[in-house]
């Protein structure tokens, strides 16, 4: 389909076309082809599916889709049955794919390979539900998706279309309500009303700092300047977080629509999306999406006949963690090395080329459109009073159901790890969590019953941060983890200010000393003193937070540091200079587990 989209009638026509490819009247084979699928062989599976279609003369189409979040079960392949439900198959291989399609040609579905079936899919942007035709019989034996532990508590808003649509098909995303929010905002609302709705919904920045988005937009709107910019921060450098990649790879138009609404609200005619260069697939899909949106009049000049113009450019990062900091990102967009600026002035008044600039995270931009289409009350009804809405966590490490989960704020860590995550691999004991980004250090299991939120009130919550939750079992050494995390900051420090550049290096040296068995108790005191000085003296947020990795880990696991120093013993058997119990009795440690398996 082509032709510009200018009004509701155009949208309805495109949506109808999209529905025809979303739910065709023949077998549809969906291959999860985001980076996680590709890394486990999705292209081979797709090729096998195409060969099988030829071989068994099936009336079927193959479609690549994004990630449904269940990375532990990758590679995933879904069958959307004509006049039947959608069934997900997990741990696929080319051989299994061929066998599955061969069985299908003989009217058998190989349900033993199935993960779950979809009874329906909520179209979040409009609130409608697409129900698949239900069929009685053996299909009822496979669990419905919402009955799985992994999905029961989830509420997909940001990931609303990931894993359901072909990210390269604009009509399919329109059939699921994308760009309706922009249409409503730009043709029936004033910019102030848009900002009010975002404020009332209580949306806060999802990048980690949780600044109220409506307030940020209002400040930029009120700043007087001839030119303003909107920027999407997709420089997801935080180790352990990959939700931005998944959104961009699965539903790029959600982000573009959010930016379009934002540009209208603050009065910016130009936007940039700054993506890490480590995400080539996301960049490719995003550029394709922008190209499509321009061709269909959703970007460019005179959008929806309103006279409003908006252009978006994709810029690639070049491998610098610090560029995830908004002022460093702005420096990088301007073509300099990414060294942070001192704030104030803040980017909302003096940003890109000194002009008012709104920098929001991928997840924040993608959260905006449903607020406009379904109203702020609907959005504010999810999550906690302090932080309404949903956010994405990436569960990984020693957890069974590793993957991306989108849940309303306020969920407890225990529910995340043991209910959604299904507990630890091999039911090993939980030793700690590395949650919310490298600067948050490692937390002990004492935090399990705390809720996750954006603000820390009387230690009753743990901070969301960047949303990565790495589950550590007893094969992890916390001194080694602290050393690793500080090493990360040492490597990524831009070198502009002395406390961060030299301080992280000294902390790394002290921790290395402890790991090698040469630590003294005085080192611990020195480490703490040094961490506190770096924290108070560094120029930017990264330097200020880097010592957190040491301080938090030390406060939660002081005993383990002391055993390393006084008894020269590493209970996990990670630190090579020290005595590892696993070396003798074969009961503990990573090596021991391997041995037991083999």
């Amino acid at each position, binding site marked *: 389909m082509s032709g510009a989209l200018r009004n509701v009638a155009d949208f309805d026509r495109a949506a109808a076309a999209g529905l025809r490819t979303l739910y065709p009247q023949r077998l549809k084979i969906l291959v999860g082809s985001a*980076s*996680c699928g*590709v*890394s*486990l062989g999705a292209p081979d599976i797709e090729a096998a599916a195409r060969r099988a279609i030829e071989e068994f003369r099936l009336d079927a189409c193959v479609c690549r889709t994004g990630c449904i979040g269940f*990375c*532990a079960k*990758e590679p995933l392949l879904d069958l959307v049955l004509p006049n039947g439900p959608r069934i997900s198959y997990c741990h696929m291989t080319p051989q299994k794919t061929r066998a599955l399609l061969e069985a299908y040609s003989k009217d058998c579905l190989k349900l033993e390979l199935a993960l779950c079936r979809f009874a329906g899919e909520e179209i979040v942007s409009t609130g409608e539900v697409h129900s698949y035709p239900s069929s009685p019989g053996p299909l009822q034996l496979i669990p419905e998706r919402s009955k799985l532990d992994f999905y029961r508590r989830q509420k997909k808003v940001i990931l609303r279309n990931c894993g359901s649509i072909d990210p390269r098909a604009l009509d399919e995303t329109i059939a699921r309500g994308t760009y309706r929010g922009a249409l409503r905002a730009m043709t029936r609302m004033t910019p102030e009303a848009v900002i009010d709705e975002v404020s009332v919904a209580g949306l806060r920045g999802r990048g980690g700092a949780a600044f109220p988005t409506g307030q940020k937009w209002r400040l930029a709107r009120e700043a007087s300047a001839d030119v303003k910019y909107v920027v999407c921060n997709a420089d*997801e*450098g*935080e*180790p*352990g*977080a*990959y939700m931005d*990649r998944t959104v961009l790879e699965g539903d790029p138009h959600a982000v573009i629509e959010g930016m379009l609404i934002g540009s209208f609200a603050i009065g910016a005619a130009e936007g940039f999306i700054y993506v*890490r*260069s*480590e*995400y*080539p697939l996301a960049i490719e899909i995003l550029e394709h999406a922008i190209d499509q949106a321009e061709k269909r009049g959703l970007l460019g000049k005179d959008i929806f006949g309103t006279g409003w113009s908006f252009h978006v450019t994709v*810029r*690639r*990062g*070049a*491998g*610098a*963690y610090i560029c995830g900091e908004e002022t460093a990102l702005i420096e*990088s*967009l*301007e*073509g*300099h*090395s*990414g*060294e942070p600026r001192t704030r104030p002035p803040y980017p909302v008044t003096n940003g890109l*080329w000194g002009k008012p600039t709104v920098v929001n995270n991928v997840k924040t931009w993608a959260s905006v459109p449903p607020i406009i289409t379904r109203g702020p009350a609907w959005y504010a009804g999810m999550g906690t009073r302090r932080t309404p809405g949903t956010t994405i966590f*990436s*569960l*990984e*490490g*020693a957890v069974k159901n*590793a*993957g*991306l989960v989108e849940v309303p704020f306020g969920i407890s860590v225990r529910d995340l790890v043991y209910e959604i995550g299904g507990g630890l691999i091999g039911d090993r004991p939980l030793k700690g969590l*590395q949650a919310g980004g*490298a600067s948050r250090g490692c937390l002990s299991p004492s935090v399990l019953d705390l809720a996750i939120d954006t603000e820390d009130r009387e230690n009753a919550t743990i901070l969301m941060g960047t949303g*990565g939750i*790495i589950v*550590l079992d007893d094969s*992890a050494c916390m001194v080694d*983890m602290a050393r*690793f*995390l500080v090493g*990360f900051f040492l*490597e*990524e420090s*831009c070198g502009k200010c*002395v406390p961060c550049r030299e301080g992280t290096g000294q902390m790394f040296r002290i921790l290395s000393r402890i790991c090698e068995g040469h630590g003294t108790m005085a080192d611990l005191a020195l480490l703490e003193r040094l961490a506190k000085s770096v924290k108070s003296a560094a120029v930017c947020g990264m330097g200020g937070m880097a010592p957190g990795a040491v301080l938090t880990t030390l406060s939660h696991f002081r005993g383990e540091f002391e055993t390393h120093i006084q008894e020269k013993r590493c209970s996990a058997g990670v630190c090579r200079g020290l005595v590892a119990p696993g070396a003798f009795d074969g009961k503990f440690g*990573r090596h021991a587990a391997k041995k037991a398996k083999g």
Partner: protein
Amino acid sequence: MTPGDGSGSAPIGSVLVLGGGIAGIQASLDLSAAGYRVFLVEESPTIGGGMARLDKTFPTGDCATCIISPKLVGAMRDYNIDVLTMADVTSLSGEAGRFVAEVRMRPRGVISSKCTGCGDCWTICPVRNNAEPPPPFRPDKPLSEADAARLGGILARHEGQPGNILPVLQEIQESYGYLPRFLLEHMACLWGLRPAELLRVGSFYDRFHFEPYGRHLVEICAGTSCHARGSGKLLEKLEKEIGVGAGETDKSRRFTLRTVRCLGLCALSPAMKINGQPFGRVDLDRVPEILEKFA
């Protein structure tokens, strides 16, 4: 230095220090403190040398002025030190312990006893006001025709766009496989930039490299999740298989091995990429089989 043997005369208790930079000043102060008479000879109109022009000193980042200023004042006030500026040593004779030096001082054009440092002479200084700007930077050798066309094409695509340095460097690296230094020098020349500006941007970002990689680039994720799930073991295995350490290229230039901070495949750790193709949940025993696919 050994005292002379023949003449039998005692060594002279004065020392000539040549060069009034921070080293010369410090040497003079130390000698004076040890009781020697010092003649500090400096070619330029002032002592202080290179350090007086610096803001900070490497590697400690200490303030340069704070270090040198007290020493400048000290050297000028010290009764044991005679500072001879605008002076050249024209001849040196004698032997260790008993030298005779001839120092020629050039005229200053200002009566230094009357100078108050008001700076008025600066505005009418014929030398300074007619000074020629330094010649613009010119690369050593000209570009070959093919390179000139290739670079010209890349530059033309980005000419005039604000903030275009990063995209241009990325495109050069894609085209050449690395950032050739001579190309950056020519680019700086064409766009009226200083080469240092480009080198600074190029060296800041981890993805840019000034040396070519091997035929295949192996990137191991060193993110937190991968670290907790054994990326260290994976790196060791790859180092053993390929025979080089992280950040190096093997002799046959088949593989370059490097670590990268998080590939975003955290739920599939340990993860790696070869030539951009991602591999998740890498089993150590499968490593040789994977590498074999990349000849």
